[in-house]
């Protein structure tokens, strides 16, 4: 089994408090036991709720930018309910770059797919880029299955640095921005239509108005962004073989 991100172990807390109670006056003991039981019940309710009889299937293929399969790339399914999180699905790509993860359904969680993406206990391939597919809604899982089809990674020695200067030419500010293409540790929405949905984690606050990315050489990158009036925009940025600075006027 591969490492979990977080799990709550209220039993050890319970035991340690009970042991310490042996040396306390009775009123303190009662107070601590009550507190302890309350904590235990609270934490036990914070775990992720799984439905063991329902099995979801995530599958796909990882290739390099030329379409050649990449073997032994780590792929994981991450679920988070706001209180606890878990790596519930795990696989490494086979010789054809294919991966398959079958795991029990988690209720009321946000689901992400990690591809060669670091997490606690992960074992990523440092020669290739990593990425995360976010916003996988349970409603979009048809026939209990998602086929992510082909995901492309690029070699880290085939990369350049991209600096984006945000240049304001209007009174509106950017509240979300993402480069789409071959980008190191990029976050991609599973459903592109959800890009316009902005939550607190997406709020963009950069005092220097500069963003830095590592991206693959020689590609046509798309930078997508949302302004504070919730309008979605994109610009195409041609990336060559050298480091690049791009002024994004908005």
């Amino acid at each position: 089994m591969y490492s979990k991100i977080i799990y709550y172990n209220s039993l050890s807390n319970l035991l340690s408090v009970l042991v310490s109670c042996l040396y306390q006056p009775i009123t303190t003991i009662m107070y601590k036991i009550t507190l302890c039981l309350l904590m235990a019940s609270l934490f036990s309710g914070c775990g992720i709720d799984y439905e063991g009889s329902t099995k979801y299937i995530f599958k796909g293929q990882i290739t390099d930018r030329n379409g050649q399969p990449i073997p032994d790339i780590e792929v994981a399914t991450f679920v988070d309910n706001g209180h606890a999180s878990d790596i519930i699905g795990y696989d490494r790509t086979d010789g054809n770059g294919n991966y398959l993860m079958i795991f029990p359904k988690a209720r009321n969680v946000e689901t992400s797919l990690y591809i060669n993406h670091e997490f606690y206990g992960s074992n990523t391939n440092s020669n290739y880029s990593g990425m995360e597919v976010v916003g996988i809604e349970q409603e979009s899982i048809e026939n209990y299955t998602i086929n992510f089809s082909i995901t492309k990674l690029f070699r880290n020695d085939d990369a350049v640095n991209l600096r984006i200067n945000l240049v304001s030419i209007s009174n509106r500010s950017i509240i979300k921005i993402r480069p789409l293409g071959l980008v190191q540790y990029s976050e991609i929405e599973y459903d592109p239509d959800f890009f316009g949905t902005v939550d607190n984690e997406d709020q963009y606050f950069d005092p220097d108005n500069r963003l830095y990315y590592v991206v693959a050489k020689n590609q046509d990158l798309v930078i997508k962004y949302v302004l504070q009036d919730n309008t979605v925009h994109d610009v195409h940025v041609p990336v060559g073989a050298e480091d690049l600075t791009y002024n994004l006027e908005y």
Partner: protein
Amino acid sequence: MAQDTVQKKTNTEYFRLYYVFPNGIGNNVLAKANNGVAGIGLSVTLYSINRLHFAIGYEFSQYNVTNASLAGNIKNTYINNFYFGALYKIPIVNRVDLTTKLTVGAFTVNQKSDGAKYGKQQGPAFTPGFDVDFKITGHLRIFAGLDYCLALPATHTASEYKSFFGTLHQLNITTGIKF
């Protein structure tokens, strides 16, 4: 008449306590993504007529998940089976009996990692099997046997994996005592 009573007592077994070597077979998640660790079982005779016994019992087995791709990133799989069954004892030679059996059970698959639980699957299980016992003294016997268990836990998944999770086959070795 006295001889009949002695014969009845010799044929009757009341309680069985046994160790299970769990083993998944076939093309299903137990066989392809788990390794059997250990198990324990016990059963009690409710009623007997000569060599035929009706019993209830409980069996618990632990598996370790060996393939996270197929079984989820989870540490252990646990099997619980509450069963009712019929057993028939056949004398082989002096002190040695063969017992054939068929049980029907309420089967539950749980998956857990340390403190975390991953839900359960439930369904019926059908277990034909046999054991050979050896009389040590009085009613005390030791036995070893083989059980085939077909379990059909409820499963909701894509059709190509329904059987993989919903039709489980086990071939378990058992050994223990009965009296």
